[in-house]
C-alpha cells in the first residue's frame, strides 16, 4: 500500500510535497525532484527555498507562515527554478491534514504550473496599461460613461482640461462646464442617443479650468458587447478652437474684402476690421491709425471700442519715434510691442503711457500697415487690459489683418485719387474748352465727348456723322479738313486748325490734334482732342491790334517830340538870321551907313543860314534813309548830333549834359540812324528818370570809350531814380516800363538794334543816385586809329571766335 501510494504520488502530474506542522518539508515527490533537478533529501527541511525565485521568497515564507498559523487552506504564487535554470510560475495550493482534534498534523502542498496562464494575464494587463496610455495620450478629451450616461472614467486630458478629479467631475453631473448657449443642443442630442442608442456628433463650447471657453467637436458613440447590447458610451471631444477661429477670421476677412470690393467707405471697413479682431481674439481692443496726406502726422482710422478721448489724443501726433508706439511703428515701419505699459519708459515726452494706463490699457502691440509699394499707410494696434506678449497665432492673425487693412486703405486712397483726377480732368476740359473724340478708321464710327457737342452746338441726342460735321466747317477751311480726313486713312498723327461757321454766322476757331493707335483687334483708331481756341484767337487779334496802335502812338509821340526839336533847332538860326538881317538893314540905312557892321551882320546871317541848312540835312538823313545802311560811323560825331537834336528837350527838363567823348575813338560799322535812335532813346530815358529830381543837379554824362580791346562803348549816366536790382533783367523787355507815361518800347527796340550790330546793351546802378546804360559794339575791322597793343588784342579775339568784327557788312 505504502509503495503503491508512493507510486501514485510520484506519478501525479503536479509537484507534491508534505510538511510537518512546524513547516519543515518532510516529503517531495518525484515530479518535484525531476522539475527542480534537486535530490529529494536536498530539498527537505528548508532546502526547497533554494529553488524559489529570490524576489518571491520573502512573500512566500511569510504567506506560508500565515497559512500555517490560520490552519486553513491557502494559495501562494511563486516562481520555481527548473532543473535547466528557467523559472516558471506555479500556483501552490496548501491544505492541512488534520486529526480529529482539529489541529493539523501535516500540511500538504501541490504546485501547479501556471506559467502560461500567468503570461497571458501579464499580456492582458500590459495591453490594458497600453490602452490606458493610449487613451491618456490621445490629443483629445475622452470620457467613458455607462449605458445610462453615468460618467465612469475619463482620460488625463479630460481631467486636466476641466481641472478636477474624477470624483469631482462625476459630482458635477452630465454636460458640465458647457457654454449656456450650447447646452440645450447637447442635452437634446444626448436624449435622442439614449433613446435610440445611436451615436451623435455636435460642436459646442466647453469651459476650461481657467474659465476660457473653447470650441469642441463632440463624438458620442456606444460600445456594445457580443450580443449587441450597449455596455458603455464613449465621448470623444476634440478641440476645434483654432479651426473655429480660423474659420471666423476667414469669414470675417472675406466679408471685409467684399466690403472693399463693394466700395464701402474706408472708415466702415476699418471699423469692421477692428470688430472682427476683437471678436476673434477675446479681451482685446483694436484701432487703426492712418498717416495723413502730408506723411507727417497721425490721422484717425477706426477704433470702435476705444474711448474717443484716447484716440483723439493720438490723432494729430507727429510721426516720429517719441510720440508713442503707433507713431514709432509708422516711423520705423516695424512692429512695436509694449508687453507692459506700466514698466515702459519710452515716449515719456508725450506722456503716452500714462494716457493709455488711464484708460485701463496695459499692453499695446502696434503693427505698421504698408502698401504693396512699401509706403507706410498707417498702423494697426491691439490693446489689452493686462500685460501681454503676442503669440505666434496672434502674429499670424495680425499679419492677415494688416494685409486686408492695406488693401482697404490703398483702395480708398486710389479711389479718392481717381475721383480727384476725374473731377480735375473734367474741370480742366471744361475750363480749357477741350473736347475729345475717337473714330474707328474702318467704320467711321465716332464717339464724341460732351464738350464737342457744345463746341459744334449739336444736339447731344443726334448721332454724329461726317456729313453733319462738314456742314459746320467754314467753307474756306473744308478742303483742308477733307485732306486731313484722307490723311487719317494712313494712320498718321496730325495737328490742324480750322474754323466753324455757326448758324448765327459767328466764327469759331478750333485746334485739333489727332493720335492714331491700333486697338487690340488690330483696328485703326484715332483719339483726337479738339480745343476751342476762339477766345485765344480773339485775344491774339486784339493784342496784335493793340500792338500796332501802340507802335503808331510811339511813332506819333516820337514824331511830335522830334518836330518840336527840329523846330527849335531851325528856329534858333532863323532867329539869328532875322535879327542879323534887321541889324544889317539898320546899319546900311544909317547916316553914314555902317558898312563894316553891315558886312559883319550879313556874314553872321550867312553862317546862321548854313546852320539851319545843316539841321535840315540831318533831318533828311533821319527821314530819307528807309533801308538799313551800314557805313563806317564815328560814334562821337553821331553822339554830338543826337545831343544837338535833343538839346532843347534836355534843356526843358533842366538836364545838364556833360560829354566825355574819347579821343581817337575807332569807328564802328552799322546803321547811323538806328544807332542814333538808340542814343536818343538813352538820353531821353535818362532825362525822364531825372524829371522828379529836385534835391540834386539833373546831371547827365554821356561818354564814349574803347572797351575790352575791340569794342566801342557808349555810356549814358544819369542821377535819376535808378532801378531796382531785380528789374535789371526786365528793363529790355517790350512794354516793361517804370515810367507813368512811357510805353516801355524804347529799350526793347534799342536792344534789337544793338543786337543786330553784334553788340550788347546793359544797365548798372550807380554808386550814387541813378543808373548808367551802356551799349558796346565791335569796332570797325580796318580801323587804323588803334595803338599796336589793341591790334594785338583784337587779333587774338579774331582767332578765338573765328568771327571778324564788322561782319555786319
Amino acid at each position, binding site marked *: 500500500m505504502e509503495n503503491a501510494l508512493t507510486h501514485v504520488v510520484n506519478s501525479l502530474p503536479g509537484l507534491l510535497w508534505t510538511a510537518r506542522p512546524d513547516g519543515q518539508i518532510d516529503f517531495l515527490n518525484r515530479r518535484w525532484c525531476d522539475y527542480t533537478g534537486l535530490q529529494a533529501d536536498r530539498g527537505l527541511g528548508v532546502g526547497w527555498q533554494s529553488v524559489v525565485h529570490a524576489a518571491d521568497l520573502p512573500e512566500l515564507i511569510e504567506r506560508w507562515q500565515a497559512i500555517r498559523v490560520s490552519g486553513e487552506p491557502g494559495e501562494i504564487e511563486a516562481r520555481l527554478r527548473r532543473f535547466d535554470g528557467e523559472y516558471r510560475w506555479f500556483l501552490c495550493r496548501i491544505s492541512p491534514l488534520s486529526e480529529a482534534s482539529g489541529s493539523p498534523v501535516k500540511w500538504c502542498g501541490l504546485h501547479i504550473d501556471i506559467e502560461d496562464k500567468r503570461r497571458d494575464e501579464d499580456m492582458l494587463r500590459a495591453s490594458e496599461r497600453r490602452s490606458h496610455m493610449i487613451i491618456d495620450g490621445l490629443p483629445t478629451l475622452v470620457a467613458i460613461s455607462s449605458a445610462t450616461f453615468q460618467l465612469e472614467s475619463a482620460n488625463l486630458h479630460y481631467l486636466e482640461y476641466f481641472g478636477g478629479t474624477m470624483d469631482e467631475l462625476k459630482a458635477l453631473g452630465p454636460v458640465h462646464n458647457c457654454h449656456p448657449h450650447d447646452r440645450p443642443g447637447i442635452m437634446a442630442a444626448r436624449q435622442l442617443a439614449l433613446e435610440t442608442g445611436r451615436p451623435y456628433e455636435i460642436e459646442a463650447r466647453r469651459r476650461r479650468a481657467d474659465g476660457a471657453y473653447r470650441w469642441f467637436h463632440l463624438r458620442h458613440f456606444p460600445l456594445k458587447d457580443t450580443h449587441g447590447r450597449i455596455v458603455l458610451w464613449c465621448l470623444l471631444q476634440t478641440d476645434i478652437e483654432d479651426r473655429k477661429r480660423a474659420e471666423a477670421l476667414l469669414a470675417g476677412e472675406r466679408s471685409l474684402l467684399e466690403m472693399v470690393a463693394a466700395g464701402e467707405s474706408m472708415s466702415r471697413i476699418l471699423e469692421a476690421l477692428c470688430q472682427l479682431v476683437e471678436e476673434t481674439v477675446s479681451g482685446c481692443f483694436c484701432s487703426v491709425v492712418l498717416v495723413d496726406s502730408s506723411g507727417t502726422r497721425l490721422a484717425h482710422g477706426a477704433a470702435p471700442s476705444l474711448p474717443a478721448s484716447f484716440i483723439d489724443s493720438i490723432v494729430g501726433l507727429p510721426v516720429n519715434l517719441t510720440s508713442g508706439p503707433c507713431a514709432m511703428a509708422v516711423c520705423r515701419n516695424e512692429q512695436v510691442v509694449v508687453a507692459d505699459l506700466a514698466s515702459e519708459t519710452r515716449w515719456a515726452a508725450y506722456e503716452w503711457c500714462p494716457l493709455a494706463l488711464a484708460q485701463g490699457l496695459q499692453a499695446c502691440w502696434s503693427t505698421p500697415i504698408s502698401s504693396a509699394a512699401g509706403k507706410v499707410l498707417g498702423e494697426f494696434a491691439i490693446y489689452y487690459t493686462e500685460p501681454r506678449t503676442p503669440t505666434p497665432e496672434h502674429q499670424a492673425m495680425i499679419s492677415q489683418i494688416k494685409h486686408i487693412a492695406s488693401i482697404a486703405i490703398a483702395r480708398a486712397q486710389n479711389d479718392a485719387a481717381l475721383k480727384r483726377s476725374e473731377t480735375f480732368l473734367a474741370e480742366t476740359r471744361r475750363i480749357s474748352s477741350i473736347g475729345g473724340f475717337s473714330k474707328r478708321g474702318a467704320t467711321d464710327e465716332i464717339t464724341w465727348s460732351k464738350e464737342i457737342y457744345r463746341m459744334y452746338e449739336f444736339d447731344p441726342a443726334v448721332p454724329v456723322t461726317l456729313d453733319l460735321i462738314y456742314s459746320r466747317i467754314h467753307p474756306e477751311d473744308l478742303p483742308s479738313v477733307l485732306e486731313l480726313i484722307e490723311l487719317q486713312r494712313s494712320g498718321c498723327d496730325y495737328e490742324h486748325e480750322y474754323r466753324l461757321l455757326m448758324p448765327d454766322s459767328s466764327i469759331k476757331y478750333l485746334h485739333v490734334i489727332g493720335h492714331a493707335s491700333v486697338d487690340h483687334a488690330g483696328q485703326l483708331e484715332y483719339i483726337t482732342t479738339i480745343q476751342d481756341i476762339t477766345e485765344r484767337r480773339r485775344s491774339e487779334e486784339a493784342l496784335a491790334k493793340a500792338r500796332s496802335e501802340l507802335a503808331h502812338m510811339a511813332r506819333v509821340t516820337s514824331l511830335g517830340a522830334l518836330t518840336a526839336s527840329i*523846330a*527849335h533847332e531851325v528856329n*534858333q538860326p532863323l*532867329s539869328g*538870321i532875322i535879327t542879323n538881317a534887321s541889324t544889317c538893314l539898320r546899319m546900311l540905312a544909317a547916316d553914314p551907313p555902317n558898312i563894316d557892321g553891315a558886312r559883319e551882320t550879313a556874314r*553872321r546871317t550867312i553862317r546862321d543860314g548854313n546852320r539851319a541848312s545843316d539841321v535840315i540835312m540831318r533831318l533828311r538823313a533821319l527821314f530819307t534813309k528807309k533801308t538799313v545802311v551800314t557805313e563806317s560811323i564815328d560814334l562821337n560825331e553821331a553822339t554830338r548830333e543826337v545831343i544837338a537834336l535833343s538839346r532843347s528837350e534836355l534843356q*526843358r527838363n533842366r538836364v545838364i549834359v556833360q560829354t566825355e567823348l574819347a579821343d581817337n575813338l575807332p569807328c564802328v560799322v552799322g546803321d547811323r540812324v538806328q544807332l542814333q535812335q538808340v542814343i536818343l532813346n538813352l538820353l531821353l530815358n535818362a532825362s525822364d528818370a531825372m524829371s522828379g529830381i529836385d534835391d540834386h543837379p539833373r546831371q547827365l554824362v554821356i561818354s564814349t570809350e574803347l572797351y575790352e580791346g575791340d569794342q566801342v562803348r557808349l555810356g549814358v549816366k544819369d542821377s535819376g531814380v535808378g532801378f531796382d536790382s531785380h528789374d535789371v533783367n526786365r528793363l529790355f523787355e517790350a512794354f516793361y516800363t517804370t515810367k507813368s507815361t512811357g510805353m516801355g518800347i524804347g529799350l526793347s527796340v534799342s536792344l534789337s538794334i544793338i543786337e543786330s550790330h553784334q553788340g550788347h546793351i546793359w544797365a548798372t546802378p550807380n554808386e550814387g543816385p541813378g543808373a548808367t546804360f551802356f551799349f558796346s559794339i565791335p569796332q570797325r575791322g580796318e580801323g587804323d586809329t588803334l595803338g599796336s597793343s589793341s591790334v594785338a588784342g583784337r587779333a587774338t579775339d579774331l582767332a578765338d571766335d573765328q568771327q571778324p568784327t564788322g561782319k555786319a557788312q
Partner: protein
Amino acid sequence: MSLRPLISIVDDDESVRESLPDLLTELGFTAQAFSSAEAFLESGDLNQTRCLILDIAMPSMSGPDLQRELTLRKHAIPIIFITAHSDENVRTLLLGKGAVECLFKPFSETSLLAAISVSLQVN
C-alpha cells in the same frame, strides 16, 4: 544913368547873344548879353536894366526861375521872354505871371520893338 536905356539879354544860344545886342544898339538902346541866369544875377547890371530879354529853356536856372528869383529880390524888371519852342500854353502861363511879352523865335524887329516900348512904359 545913361540916356539910352539898358536892355539885358540872357540866352544860352550864342547866335542870339551875338546878334541881338547889335540890333538893340542900332535901335538906340544899350544892350548887355549874358549866357546864363546866374551870370546876369552876379553882374552889377540888375539895377540899371530897364528891360530883360530872357530865354525860357536854359540848362541850370531857366528863364521862369530867374523871373521868380527877381521877384523874390524885389527887382521889378519888365521881362520879354523869347523861345524857340512855339507853345501858346507856355506863353499864356508866362504872361499870367507878369511877363510883358513872350516872343517865339524867329521874331520880327517890329514885334520886338513893340514889346520893348511896352516894357519901357511900364517903367
